[in-house]
């Protein structure tokens, strides 16, 4: 609630939108806080779920790909650590994306009763997933200790790639959440995207298997790198696994561009449609 003259008009461009967003940071904080508090209410092991879910998936992926499928990690890195370095950002993305994509509908009672910049709702869902991400980071540390593996100095770049993951999740989350308000079909599409994404992203395998393969034509490699999560996961592996992994630069740059495009288009589409949310939700 700020002191300024408000003009309400049809199709008005709210010049104070970003200022409003800043003024509503308190609400942003409380919505995130609510989601964190509520998340594991009435569960027995509570926050342990944040660790358990990715851990079990890592174990299964390691067994399936490494032991049964005979895949191997680059440069003799323990396979479980490689999977973990991909699983953590993927888990973060899939949580953040599906939570934020459903967030407007889950909070429809707020949208129809109070004014606030609508961007807050999906954005705060992403924040909650970041907290989950930090908690599940324990797994990686545990694996480092178990395998007596020490990451290189490049790990200080990790926040950069976390930011990239956040951008990707935020952009796609905003876009889908806005679409979801009008077309509830997306409620069924979201789990599908998440499930499908797990297999086309380099979670259980290494990107070098794609980029390094001579059987795969170049065009397919570029299409592969248009998946923004390829850039994110490759970045995570590069930072965590030290010098053992090389980034395939052209592919990485394409991924980053797709991520940024998603963010800008997501914000653009969201801003364009948000004024009508309360009418159609």
């Amino acid at each position: 609630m700020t002191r300024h003259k408000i003009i309400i008009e049809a199709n008005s461009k709210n010049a104070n939108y970003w200022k409003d967003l800043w003024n509503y940071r308190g609400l942003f904080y409380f919505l995130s806080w609510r989601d964190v508090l509520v998340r594991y209410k009435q569960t027995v092991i509570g926050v342990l779920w944040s660790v358990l879910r990715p851990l079990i998936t890592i174990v299964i992926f390691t067994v399936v790909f490494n032991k049964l499928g005979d895949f191997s990690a680059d440069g003799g890195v323990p396979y479980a650590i490689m999977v973990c370095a991909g699983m953590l950002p993927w888990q973060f993305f899939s949580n953040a994306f599906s939570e934020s994509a459903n967030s407007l509908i889950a909070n429809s009672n707020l949208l129809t009763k109070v004014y606030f910049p609508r961007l807050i709702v999906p954005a705060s869902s992403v924040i909650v997933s970041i907290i989950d991400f930090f908690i599940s980071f324990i797994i990686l540390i545990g694996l480092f200790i178990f395998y007596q593996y020490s990451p290189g100095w490049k790990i200080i770049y990790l926040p950069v790639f976390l930011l990239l993951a956040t951008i990707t999740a935020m952009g796609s989350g905003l876009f889908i959440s806005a679409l979801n308000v009008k077309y509830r079909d997306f409620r069924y599409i979201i789990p599908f995207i998440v499930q499908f994404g797990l297999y086309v992203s380099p979670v259980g395998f290494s990107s070098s298997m794609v980029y390094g393969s001579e059987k795969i034509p170049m065009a397919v490699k570029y299409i592969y790198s248009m998946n923004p999560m390829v850039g994110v996961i490759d970045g995570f592996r590069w930072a965590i696994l030290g010098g053992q992994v090389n980034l395939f630069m052209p592919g990485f740059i394409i991924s980053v561009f797709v991520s940024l495009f998603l963010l800008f288009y997501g914000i653009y589409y969201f801003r364009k449609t948000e004024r009508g949310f309360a009418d159609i939700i």
Partner: protein
Amino acid sequence: MEPVIKVEHLSKSYVLRQQNKTSYTTLRDTLAGKARSLFADPSSLISGTSKENFLALEDVGFEVNKGDRIGIIGRNGAGKSTLLKILSRIVEPTKGRITIDGRVASLLEVGTGFHPELTGRENVFLNGSILGMSKAEIKSKFDEIVAFAEIEKFLDTPVKRYSSGMYVRLAFAVAAHLEPEILIVDEVLAVGDAQFQKKCLGKMQDVSGQGRTILFVSHNMEVVQKLCTKGILLERGRLIQDGPIDSVVKKYLEVFAVGDSMFKISLPDDHEQQQGYAHLIHVEDIRGNPLAEIPIGQPWQIRVCFRLNRRVPQFVIALGLTTLFDMPLRTTWTPPGDLSEGDYEVVFKCDDILFTAGQYKLIVGLSSDRIPFQYVEGAGYLTISDVSTLHNDKQIINTNSGLIINQMNTIITRKSK
């Protein structure tokens, strides 16, 4: 003085989708049509519908000065809530312009954003921030809010374990401690028990005493008249009148009383040859104002106009009241008396029994020397609306508890230890 709210030529239209009523289509036709339209416009996938525009507000304009307390009145569907939603920036107008100068807080629902899993304490902070309070503001008022809601003991209990009364009290307590310059309130007082409602009204009057501007929607004319200084009357999206609250309320009663509050009795062709006939029924409040809908809990009266063509010995006119399913509820006869030729009217006052909300059928009968000469079933209808709130400080009355809502006298006596 510069107005704090200025509304000019405000319109809001909604697109209504209606199911197309085609006579007979095969599944194959439907599928083919869907497939075609899929490429044209995905929104048409939402089954065979046609669009129709509906104007919720049409060219509404008014001004509000600082410190005004505006009551927005009108029947259901008049556009009151839409107006509040536009003023609160929740929905966008289709046409027109609104200028607001000052901090706005709107209260369209009690307890917006309350989360059942969170404790009372946590919900105070969450709800406060949703309503636009800062964390510091909530902290400084926290004790006051809790005391107002009277829930000190349950502060750390999840609100899903609260009784509905406690829930509403807590929710309203947060809202009551908002301190915006402009407060927009939809009909939220209709919940909670009478005593708490009174407390809230008092709080709102305090707030407005400090020079704040209030826009208030209610169906309860009594509350509106008590709280507001000015009124705005809406009907079918149009502004009919604005001005001092008393004249607007009067207009509301006038406009909506006519029509539904008056029933003409259809008469047989030979009615002039009869001894007499009743021809008009008015439904009124106890002071004689015509009223289409009687607020629940309020007394009412029925005025019947009749004509006698000649002198009628031992004349009796009776009024019967039945439910819509023809269950007789009450019949009242006038004492028999000899009446000479002329036009008459009779008033049946109902100030002892309070019927619950709903529609009731009226029966009128005329007789002379116990021989009826006119009997009309469904001569008119009485509508009792549940929009108003009961003002009864001593008891809680549930409007679904029975046809008659008057309470019996009760005595509790202790028989043993």
